[in-house]
């Protein structure tokens, strides 16, 4: 076994020191009748070279964003990852260390987390960030729990349909056992109708979640929704796309922000877009920030600055009395291991981009996605499903209603066409969510449009009107 050190001689010497005859004797602490009396039924061991061959064969059964032009989004994005992020993330001192319980030998991690927290507060316009949660979905659910605990309103939480369906499902799971109701506000136009929202807000509503840009890629009326939420005494939980903040107002600044006694109270995000691979959905990075006054309800670890016994400035975990290892069943959350390494990657990524790089990235996403939206909408086969302005994603409606075929044929032609929405919204089963990041080129988009053009039946049908119009 490549990772074991003990030689036969070692084993003998150690057993002698212990005063045991054999390793089996040590295992006798397990009652005989509970012991497994056969070897585990698992495939035989493989050395590194063999295993690499096995893995190679499995890998070859996958297509991926490196060999297929991807227009997939919906919460996981093919943004560019600079090589420096990988170089730093693969430093053993970062990735093989534990949670920084011994601050003296973990200043590297602690400082990196502190810097991460600072960047998150600067991106969100909120005062406090924790040092990460699992992912966007569970971060949204934790925000809901925070809101319930803060407002002491156990009636309901309000989620628009334009919030990521998987986030809504996750929230439902988290609150089900607490007897809290999840009220879903329909968004037939692709964005929240503030009046519709107001109609479900009352003094039992703990919070409203608002994703912006939302799951359909569309921009919400953040100011009005925030105002309506606060009027009802509920908290506004913003779900944001970190990349979009290169252009868009920070959640903390919505509806006039702190100066107006408003803005989001809690902001959460999926941080995968900040330098982490899509990796079939995880591990990702749950980002969470909140107003200072909410910090003692916040889940997860927080790094604080302090001084050591010699007065040297340094970093340490702080406000640990919120946490499970101190407070047990009274803790704000059960979270223990978080996503430290991915918070680090996000820090490195944002350090490399800087304010201008983030802005340019956001701008490229905006311009390029608009380009593809226009090109697709120009085709007979498609229309844009919604009219609200979008950021990097948009929804097209296939007048032929053959979304699954479109996806299949696109794959054959070398494209991941997008996310079919029927799986989440039965009424949108003729719709596809299409995402364009800064990585996509005009040539790729044109080729995609051409490929669709060539698909059987893409012309004709509903399209004659438009065809004459162009």
């Amino acid at each position: 076994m490549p990772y074991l050190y003990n030689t036969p001689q070692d084993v003998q010497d150690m057993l002698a020191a212990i005063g045991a005859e054999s390793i089996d004797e040590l295992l006798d602490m397990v009652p005989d009748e509970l012991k497994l009396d056969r070897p585990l039924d698992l495939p035989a061991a493989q050395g590194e070279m063999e295993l690499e061959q096995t893995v190679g064969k499995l890998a070859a059964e996958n297509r991926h964003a490196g060999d297929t032009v991807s227009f997939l989004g919906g919460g996981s994005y093919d943004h560019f990852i600079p090589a420096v992020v990988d170089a730093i993330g693969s430093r053993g001192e970062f990735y093989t260390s534990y949670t920084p319980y011994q601050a003296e030998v973990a200043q590297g991690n602690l400082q990196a987390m502190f810097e991460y927290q600072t960047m998150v507060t600067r991106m969100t316009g909120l005062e406090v960030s924790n040092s990460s949660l699992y992912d966007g979905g569970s971060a949204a659910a934790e925000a809901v729990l925070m809101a319930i605990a803060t407002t002491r309103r156990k009636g309901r939480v309000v989620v628009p349909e334009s919030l990521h369906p998987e986030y809504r499902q996750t929230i439902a799971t988290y609150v089900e056992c607490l007897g809290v109701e999840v009220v879903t506000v329909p968004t037939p136009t692709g964005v929240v109708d503030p009046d519709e929202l107001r109609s479900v807000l009352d003094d039992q509503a703990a919070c409203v979640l608002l994703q912006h840009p939302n799951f359909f890629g569309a921009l919400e009326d953040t100011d009005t929704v925030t105002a309506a939420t606060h009027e009802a005494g509920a908290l506004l939980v913003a779900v944001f796309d970190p990349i979009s903040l290169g252009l868009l107002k920070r959640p903390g600044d919505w509806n006039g922000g702190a100066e107006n006694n408003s803005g989001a109270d809690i902001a959460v995000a999926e941080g995968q877009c900040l330098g982490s691979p899509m990796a079939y959905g995880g591990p990702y990075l749950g980002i969470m920030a909140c107003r200072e006054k909410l910090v003692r309800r916040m889940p997860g670890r927080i790094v604080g600055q302090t001084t050591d016994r010699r007065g040297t400035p340094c970093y340490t975990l702080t406000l640990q009395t919120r946490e499970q290892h101190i407070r047990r069943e009274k803790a704000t959350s059960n979270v223990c291991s978080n996503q430290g390494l991915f918070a680090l990657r996000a820090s490195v990524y944002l350090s490399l981009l800087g304010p201008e790089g983030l802005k340019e990235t956001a701008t490229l996403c905006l311009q390029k996605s608009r380009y593809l939206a226009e090109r697709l909408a120009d085709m007979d086969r498609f229309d844009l499903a919604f009219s609200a302005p979008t950021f990097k994603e948009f929804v097209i409606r296939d007048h032929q209603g053959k979304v699954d075929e479109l996806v299949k044929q696109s794959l054959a032609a070398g494209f991941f066409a997008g996310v079919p929405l029927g799986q989440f919204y039965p009424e949108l089963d003729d719709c596809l969510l299409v995402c364009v990041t800064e990585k996509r080129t005009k040539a790729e988009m044109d080729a995609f449009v051409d490929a669709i053009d060539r698909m059987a039946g893409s012309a004709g049908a509903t399209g004659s009107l438009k065809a004459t119009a162009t």
Partner: protein
Amino acid sequence: MKNTRDTKSLFELSKPGRRATRLPVCDVPEHEITDLLPPSVLAERPPALPELSEPQVVRHFVNLSTQNMSVDTHFYPLGSCTMKHNPKRNERTAAMPEFAHLHPYQPEESLQGMLRVLYEMQEFLSEISGLPACSLQPAAGAHGELTALWVAAAYFRDQNSIDQHRKVLVPDSAHGTNPASAAMAGFQVVTVKTLQNGAVDMEDFRSKLDDQIAVFMITNPNTVGIFEPSMREIADEVHALGGLIYLDGANMNAILGVTRAGDFGADMQHYNPHKTFSGPHGGGGPGAGPICVAEHLRPCLPAPVVSKRETPGGEEFYLDFGGEKSLGRVRSFFGNVGVLLRAWSYIRTHGPDGLRKVSEHAVLNANYLLSRVKHFLPVPQGDRCMHEFVATVAPLKSEKGVTAMDLAKRLLDYGFHAPTVYFPMTVKEAFMIEPTETESKETLDAFAEVLFRITEEDPELLHEAPHSTAISRPDEVAAARKPVMCYCGP
């Protein structure tokens, strides 16, 4: 060779106008941004991120990294955390573009290799636990606990007995995540006492067990590293009242191929692949928290799981979104796949014999170290342990005023990471040592010798330890009283 200039905070290093990233010019016809987006949503300027050059970013973070101890650099006997070697081949596998660059919403036909790995992983974990149904979705151990408790809730709901089964029993020596998870899942937490040797106090247990029992959360081997002597009785008595047994599987490193949760009475368990199966800890994560459950709980598992169907051409893997009874989703997307891939690679590297050897040597190393340490630090649990043991610094504290924290801090001066201290709470001045199987006798000998030497050192020296690190004993009280949680400069 310390470089303190480049480890200044990124915000101090920042200078207006520095750039590390150059984006391409836009290759599509551009619109005015204000033509595309309403002015009300636009920020005046992008967030005040630091402005740096690439070499600066590299030097900053590389220097920061060297301020950490890690498994790659140091012996790290942090009890309960299984800080074993993180094999580099696993990293290589996880970084392959064919896995790293998969989108969660790709068509299944384009993901067959990935799904096959995940399917196999479900099978492996089921076999190792003796519990036939598996969900890979949870994002960490604690998340696995919570998910399993939701499974239990869904099960009782389905049985129409959720209003009866309200209590979750948790030993006082359990990890803090157990009671916290139970509370989050809406159960009432009842603490059960444990004995000096870490075993469940059966009298106390029986006094608290009644027909309101929903779940008994047991850690086995428990947090002092002994195998629960009354495991079978506990399971039988809980089952008799309609309750379920949950195994906190954080200590699986002791029993791989030796005994199985399903065989000793558990109905559910989570794994910490970032412990048992060598996933790196990442300075605090990511981990994963896959769970396995008994057949009768399968319908309650979160969705999706990976299933297999036969096709004319062979077999095909697909996501199965479960039925009515599924508790739903516990997170976005499938799970912490990158961590699971590493664990899969680890299991494939070892095979059945190898996995058992892992546990054998984890237990051997722990017992050997116990046999050396007990001569100068009492080990209340006795002379034998599984993969870890808990010594107490209490006598030293009453004799000389030296605490577990003092010993821990002083070990850092000698180039050893500290064991876990003050956990479990049931042992006074607890000093919890888990050497793991990927350490040598030489290292264990050196550690024991140093630890002994420290116990003989001047208490004053220890109170102020560590002495060789850049900083020593951060003022945590001040940090919590007036928390500074982000850089306040420009």
